[in-house]
């Protein structure tokens, strides 16, 4: 297909630093695709960006109802975009329910594009609206564009021979075309994507392309749009970039770890939101020798990975909270038999089924302590979607070096959110040395490396190394069954000391912002974006604020206590009831304050700013 020439609009064009757009509509309206396409386009243009897909747990709730609303928010910028944005400049609402759910976040005088064809009486009733907001002045504070999205799309597609229903399914591309005009963006990458996506159905290639081009032309032709915007590329560090979501970065990170270690990757997994995309991605990487095993349940998912680790593979299992609970006993086994394993928990709202598609970071204490008896496990947490790649590598490296199961705590926000990611050279990746024991002379399965306290990885098939391991307590060094009191205490202490020894892998923390002063923010996981964004603003107002973002939650960096001591106050924002803050208070006897949000949504930059001011003003 020929590329589209972006014609300079005749009307006013204003250059702005950043914009936030939210596409929202019914679950079946293709809002996630629309948002992803827009994201890809602005990324290719060179903007920094952050996204927030927000979709319901139901696959297709009744059309037009509030529970069925699906949204995708993109923040793109010529400087930095640490968060998806607190409030929107542009809202595209495909129906009344989508308008109702999302309007509160639209900035005053923001652009509001609605599909007026879906604002009939029935549609309003489905959204539980008693009067039509397009007519009753509730939208007076916004720049409202009532567009006949359905009618215009059908008109554009009348030559395709598609039925009305199929034509209506292209209207998201009409809306996308409008946004491309509004932000003066090329449609090329989306045209390419459509061609590839629907290559087996040429009529759909034609229809979707036509719909998008019609949306673009509509804005150009109609007098209603008097202004379009320009957001210049951001000044990112030099390098080659791509877009990644947290889940795709984790999948690539695990493949990289397997390649660097020179051992096959085995993923045992049971589908669960929001972790399933890691399974999907890895199952497509068979050319890397990746084995993916969709197990019968969460328990088989982890135990098969333990079996594969015993065999000498890089054993990985991925899940979310409820699945993590089911894996608990097996994780204890991995602690006892001291095999390398990576358990990745993509956290979601809980307890129980909770909020399957919404984010939370309330599995920290479960990860640290959620097993019977003394079963310490190293815990790592990525702070951005791109960081997921590095955390996957680091977790795998530690697991192998220390012969220990490692937990990664990602979350729904990182999993589905995307950002530009600077692609590393393969040579920049850390080495992951693997040494299988082969020497049968005086072999002892629990004799430890004095530096790491790791036991040897003695895999089946190695002559002369036949031995038994198990969950039952074993004698130090020999690994034989042993119930003696002092031996048990020694083994408990050895397992703990081994995890503590991992501190030698953990870099000292260096606070962002002020190295000492009024306030230190200590946080972990996906709160990195809003805290970093908020820090910038508050520091310009004269407060001396530092920020430590922990990627290692067990063991904690060895200088953390000293760093905490350099500030008058400590604030710990978390999307839970205060789990890290409890640990910091216990470990460092510091009067750290929690700031807790448990709404299934990430913090807004403004919320963090406000909290900082509350503590300092």
């Amino acid at each position, binding site marked *: 297909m020929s590329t589209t020439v972006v014609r300079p609009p005749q009307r006013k064009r204003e250059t702005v630093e950043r914009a936030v757009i939210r596409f929202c509509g019914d679950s079946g309206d293709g809002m996630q695709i629309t948002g992803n396409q827009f994201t890809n386009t602005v990324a290719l243009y060179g903007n920094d960006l952050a996204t927030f897909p927000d979709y319901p747990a139901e696959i297709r709730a009744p059309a037009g109802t509030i529970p069925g609303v699906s949204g995708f928010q993109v923040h793109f910028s010529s400087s930095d975009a640490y968060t998806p944005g607190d409030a929107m400049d542009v809202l595209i609402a495909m129906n009344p329910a989508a308008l109702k759910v999302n309007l509160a976040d639209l900035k005053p005088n923001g652009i509001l594009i609605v599909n007026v064809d879906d604002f009939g009486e029935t549609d309003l009733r489905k959204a539980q609206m008693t009067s039509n907001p397009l007519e009753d002045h509730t939208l007076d504070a916004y720049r409202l564009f009532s567009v006949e999205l359905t009618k215009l799309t059908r008109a554009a597609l009348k030559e395709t021979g598609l039925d009305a229903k199929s034509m209506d399914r292209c209207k998201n591309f009409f809306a996308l075309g409008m946004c491309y005009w509004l932000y003066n963006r090329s449609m090329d990458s989306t045209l390419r994507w459509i061609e590839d996506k629907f290559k087996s159905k040429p009529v759909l290639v034609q229809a979707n392309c036509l719909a998008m081009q019609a949306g673009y032309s509509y804005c150009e032709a109609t007098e209603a749009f008097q202004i379009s915007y320009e957001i210049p590329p951001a000044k990112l560090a*030099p390098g080659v970039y*791509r877009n990644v979501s947290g889940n795709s970065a984790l999948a690539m990170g695990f493949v990289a770890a397997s390649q660097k270690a020179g051992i096959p990757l085995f993923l045992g997994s049971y589908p669960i939101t929001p972790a399933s995309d890691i399974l999907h991605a890895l199952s497509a990487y068979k*050319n890397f020798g990746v084995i993916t095993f969709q197990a019968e349940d969460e328990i088989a998912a982890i135990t098969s990975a333990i*079996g594969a*680790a*015993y065999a000498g593979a890089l054993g990985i299992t991925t899940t979310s909270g409820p699945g993590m609970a089911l894996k608990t006993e097996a994780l204890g086994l991995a602690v006892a038999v001291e095999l390398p394993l990576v358990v990745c928990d993509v956290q979601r709202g809980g307890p129980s089924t909770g909020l399957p598609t919404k984010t939370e970071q309330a599995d920290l204490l479960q990860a640290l302590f959620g097993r019977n008896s003394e079963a310490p496990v190293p815990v790592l947490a990525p702070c951005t979607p791109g960081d997921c790649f590095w955390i996957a590598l680091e977790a795998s490296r530690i697991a192998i070096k220390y012969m220990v199961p490692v937990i990664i705590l990602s979350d729904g926000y990182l999993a589905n959110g995307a950002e530009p990611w600077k692609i590393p050279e393969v040579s920049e990746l850390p080495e992951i040395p693997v040494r299988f024991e082969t020497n049968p002379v005086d072999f002892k399965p629990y004799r430890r490396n004095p530096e790491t306290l790791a036991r040897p990885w003695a895999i*089946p*098939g190695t002559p002369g190394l*036949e031995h038994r391991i198990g*969950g039952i307590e074993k004698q130090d060094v020999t690994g034989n069954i042993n119930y003696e009191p002092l031996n048990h205490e020694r083994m408990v202490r050895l397992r703990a000391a081994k995890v503590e020894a991992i501190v030698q892998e953990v870099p000292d923390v260096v606070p962002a912002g002020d190295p000492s002063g009024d306030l230190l923010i200590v946080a972990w996981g996906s709160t990195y974006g809003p805290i970093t964004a908020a820090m910038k603003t508050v520091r310009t107002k004269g407060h001396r604020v530092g920020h430590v973002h922990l990627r290692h939650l067990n063991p904690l960096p060895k200088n953390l206590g000293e760093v905490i001591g350099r500030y008058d106050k400590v604030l710990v924002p978390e999307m839970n009831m205060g789990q890290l803050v409890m640990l910091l208070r216990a470990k460092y006897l510091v009067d750290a304050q929690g700031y807790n949000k448990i709404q299934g949504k990430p913090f807004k930059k403004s919320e963090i700013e406000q909290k900082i001011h509350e503590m300092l003003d």
Partner: protein
Amino acid sequence: MSTATLPTPLTKKDFQTDQEIRWCPGCGDYAILSAVQSVFPELGIPKEKFVVISGIGCSSRFPYYMNTFGFHTIHGRAPAIATGLKIARPDLEVWVATGDGDSLSIGGNHTIHMLRRNVGLKVLLFNNRIYGLTKGQFSPTSELGKKTKSTPYGSTDRPFNPISLAIGAEATFVARSVDVFQQHLKDTLRRTAAHKGSAYVEILQNCNIFNDHAWESLTEKDARSENVIQLEHGKPLIYGKNHDKGIRLNGLELEVVQLGNGVSEKDLLVHDERHPRPAYAFMLAHMEQKPGFPTPIGVLRAWDNVPAYEDLISAQIHEVQEARGKGDLAKLLHAGDIWEVRP
């Protein structure tokens, strides 16, 4: 002159460990251990290739007494751990030791899914119809009405028939033997070892502490030949002290017939362990539940035309690598739309 020397043939002793065996004196597990240690050296497989995986329970202590690689895991999960092991290392000879509680209660899910996938694992189910290690509660194979510590007024649970369950899960190899029938048990283990795919062997085993005499009607010298029928592929179903009884198919029912008086071997059902229809194996499996019928032992089913799971997985990886070439990490990282920011 060649410097290569032939490996010394393995013996039973090579598979014995120095660990003190902690089963109760008189336990049927000793006989099973002895049979396995006798058969393994015959298989022509290097010792380091054997792995024995177990769950929890008396039977699951098995790996400690086998001088092979061994992994005593957690309750019910041995098939799942062994599946991961076998997929990652199809060259290993992986055996699973399990019990009626471990395999059919807490591990029931893993058992059926291992069988339907046809993972190349040899599973020895030690069925003593009781929980031994927790000291005497009823198990999923205990008979209805059984009085145990946890069922003082009798069990209200209908039991599983392990053979029937395995057949229902589309197992490709299902067999039954008895701890004290050493010769039969060894023969069955040899057949088990030769099978590609999941092999499920129920071994009727006596717990002399908590469920003594559970299989007495089958094992007692006088009763044995009247109550047990030994299945052999291609041979008519004959049993009885004088080899004078047989099993005949009458419509969709089996019936016991007395040979003679016009009834000859030709009239009897001829055992076909490769019979493609499940109904056949089910009929045999359920025979013992009818009064007057013997309990079948031997190989009930042996399908040799179903690919092993680990082979399918290896073949798929191989096919993708042939078609797409081996993965290139740099290409993976640069996949999709990329852009360059220049200094």
